[in-house]
């Protein structure tokens, strides 16, 4: 049986109080369920594992120092993700800001998106994710998306945040979240489709694209 949202909030509020009273172990208990969430948030922005870990851990330390500022108006997880997101953004900006932003802008075109026509889509079975090659292919496809698409995709489809939560973290409108997510998903489909015959593993080109 899973705890309901209000039970979770009560539990977290108690932990927050314990931390503020000086119980450091309680803080670890508080963030532990969200480790994957914050790591995925960080990697959606910085792309590589080492920087993502650093940003995620910095964010947790920051959350610890600023815990008294958490008022419980949002979910604790949303607050934590928001700090992580900002921390990761700052890291990217410090490292090589101009490079990232200009590439993103070029890809961030408006207008309708025409999905490529693959004659048939044979589903990529999730069991294939047991294979390292498949995980890497999905990972690389996500990483090849520009930041605006990658971050919304990770917040919504990896972390399963609601549209409302995503708007808070990204500081944008629900309409923007939906449009970007839409584009991100279709782009990802185009990027992954050539692998559906197992071509990632065999290293062969995909032959079933219709010529129009």
């Amino acid at each position, binding site marked *: 049986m899973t705890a309901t949202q209000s039970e979770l909030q009560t539990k977290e509020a108690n932990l927050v109080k314990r931390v503020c009273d000086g119980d450091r172990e309680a803080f670890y208990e508080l963030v532990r369920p969200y480790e994957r969430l914050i790591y995925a948030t960080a990697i959606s922005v910085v792309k590589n594992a080492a920087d993502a870990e650093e940003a995620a851990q910095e964010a947790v330390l920051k959350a610890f120092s600023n815990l008294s500022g958490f008022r419980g108006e949002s979910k604790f997880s949303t607050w934590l993700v928001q700090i992580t997101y900002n921390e990761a953004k700052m890291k990217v900006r410090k490292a090589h800001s101009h490079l990232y932003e200009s590439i993103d802008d070029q890809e961030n075109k408006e207008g309708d998106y025409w999905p490529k026509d693959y004659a048939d889509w044979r589903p990529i079975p999730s069991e294939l994710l047991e294979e390292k090659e498949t995980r890497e292919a999905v990972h690389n496809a996500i990483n090849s998306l520009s930041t605006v698409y990658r971050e919304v995709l990770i917040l919504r489809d990896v972390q399963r945040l609601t549209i409302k939560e995503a708007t808070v973290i990204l500081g944008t409108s629900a309409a923007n979240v939906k449009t970007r997510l839409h584009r991100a*998903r279709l782009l990802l489909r185009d990027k992954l489709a050539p692998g559906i015959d197992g071509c990632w593993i065999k290293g062969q080109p995909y032959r079933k694209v219709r010529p129009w």
Partner: protein
Amino acid sequence: MVKKEGRMATIEISCVEVWREISNYLDEEISLEMRERMEAHFKACAHCTAVLDGTRNVVGLVGDGRVFQMPDGFSKRLYEKLQKLP
């Protein structure tokens, strides 16, 4: 909606209109009317059905916990950092 033989008929929509809403369709972020139009379209259009299936498949893969695995020792290192805080 147009009246046809005593019942409401679904207005046909184009492939482009369907693509525009595929993501919202998967998230159930569209009106009932649009959903019905899209479903009618999917029945007749193999291409759009392939786009829908592919997108749904991709969303499922991305959401699988195995894609974003945390680096080994992440928790341990985090715990140690927290212990070192003044």
